[in-house]
């Protein structure tokens, strides 16, 4: 079983490399990290005194947009593309279970996301050390937390991309669905929550529903967990006020559960695909 997953992962990684997905993802992360490190480091929180923590705080709002986007872009073609090329039917006549095929792809694509995330954050961290000297070492725990939560966030959205890929059957449709999903979960979700909070004006929604609504979305959970843990104030999001009142285990649970949930969803969607 592991050899088949590894074989699939190796092939998929080779494809990602040739398709320039690795280069593009890494370049995107590095570029945005550099911009943040040099231009966006201004809004420092009260507790975050060392330059690396400041950088991490800005990286959080970057990652919330970029990591899901990269994950969806890499993953949307996974099943739909093979189905269209006709290789899906072929692969499924091999002693290769659908779970193994999906896991192999996930492993390879998660490697790409991890490489991109690590490269991007490393550049930002180097910049922080360059400006702040050894003091920046205080921010290393926050940076490490950002890395592994980003990888988990990436895993969740990779599997969501696979689910889109299974449901639409055509690569073009899958791409549209993936972008739609990104818009809804990353952009519109927060806007809708904000609008609801404003309209509710301190009512039951704000006190009872809103904290849960924030935690349920993996991207928001990621943001809240990292912000709360690093003690920084997120200048980019109007949702940070509520974040401080939420117990840290809730967003953490969401971050850990989502990859499993999304992978299950992808697997169930894959079952419905007839090659």
């Amino acid at each position, binding site marked *: 079983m592991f050899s088949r997953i590894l074989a699939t992962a190796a092939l998929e990684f080779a*494809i990602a490399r040739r398709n320039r997905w690795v280069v593009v993802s890494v370049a995107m992360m590095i570029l945005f990290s550099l911009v943040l490190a040099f231009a966006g480091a201004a809004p420092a929180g009260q507790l975050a005194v060392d330059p690396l923590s400041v950088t991490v705080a800005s990286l959080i709002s970057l990652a919330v947009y970029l990591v899901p986007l990269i994950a969806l872009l890499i993953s949307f073609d996974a099943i739909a593309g093979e189905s269209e090329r006709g290789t899906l039917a072929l*692969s499924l006549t091999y002693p290769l279970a659908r779970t193994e095929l999906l896991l192999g792809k996930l492993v390879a694509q998660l490697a790409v996301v991890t490489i991109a995330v690590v490269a991007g954050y490393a550049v930002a961290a180097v910049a922080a050390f360059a400006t702040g000297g050894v003091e920046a070492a205080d921010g290393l725990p926050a940076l490490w937390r950002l890395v592994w939560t980003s990888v988990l966030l990436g895993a969740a959205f990779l599997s969501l991309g696979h689910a889109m890929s299974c449901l639409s059957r055509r690569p073009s449709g899958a791409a549209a669905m993936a972008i739609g999903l990104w818009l809804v979960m990353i952009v519109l979700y927060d806007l809708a929550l904000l609008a609801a909070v404003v309209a509710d004006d301190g009512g039951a929604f704000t006190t009872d529903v809103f904290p849960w609504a924030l935690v349920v979305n993996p991207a928001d959970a990621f943001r809240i967990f990292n912000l709360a843990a690093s003690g920084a104030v997120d200048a980019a999001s109007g949702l940070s006020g509520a974040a401080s009142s939420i117990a840290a285990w809730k967003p953490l649970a969401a971050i850990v559960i989502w990859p499993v949930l999304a992978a299950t969803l992808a697997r169930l969607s894959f079952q419905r695909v007839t090659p």
Partner: protein
Amino acid sequence: MTILTLSKLTKRYGGTTVLDEVSLDIAAGERVALLGHNGAGKSTLMKLVLGLIHADGGRIEVAGHAPGSAVARSLTAYLAENAAFHPAITGREQLCYYLRLRGQPVKQADELLEKVGLADAATRRIGTYSKGMRQRVGLAQALIGNPRLMVLDEPTSGLDPVSRREFYALLDELAAKGTAVLLSSHALSELEARTDRMVILAKGKQVAQGTLADLRSDAALPLTVTIFPKAEQAPQVAEAFPEAQIFEDRVTFTCAPDEKLAVLERIVALRGHIADYDLHAATLDDLYSHISRRVA
């Protein structure tokens, strides 16, 4: 020993019946060709055998196992019609992948590529391959691990005539080792003497099955006789063959297979008036269109 058993296999899509109670057995070492017009149900039948889709009726057994089961999959090789491998990877990488899935040593990849004539292109990306070369990658993967059953959907499409011959030579080798082969094709003439049995589907129904000789004698297709009279002798020849069509330089008519000798005797009797003659048996294409028309 029977490797593949289909009994009363039925498949419907929506309201249309795509396969209608098709029954077929293939023994080890037997090569069976599946023929039929576009949309006759050949690919559908193969996908059912592979367990990629599920039947609405009837039964399939692959060496006693359910189609698509782990055992059946480990025994079966498949070549999909129009399989297009990812353009970014090389032929060798693609084969190594399939070898690893079957738990075979990856060093066989070069041997397999050699077998299908792709040794020189092994390290090139499949995106740079020609259509026939891509088809050969598909063939190479179907040869992995001495399968008991090979299901090949239009395996020779896109191959040049020499490669086709090489392909059938490969099949002969495999069949000699006991592999059962089910293949579909539109190129009837190339199947002659290359397969043990033919199954003809039309609109999902099995309309004929048997060796080529069986099908020929069942259909009893007429032969075409052409006689070229000597100069100025045409009227005499035409008189002797009143059933014939008369042309300027020849007369032609058809005769049933069992009248062949009688016709020959009549021709010999006219020896003095005849310059030459031709006797044409029905071609495979004639036979095929006759059978499909008979059903329609």
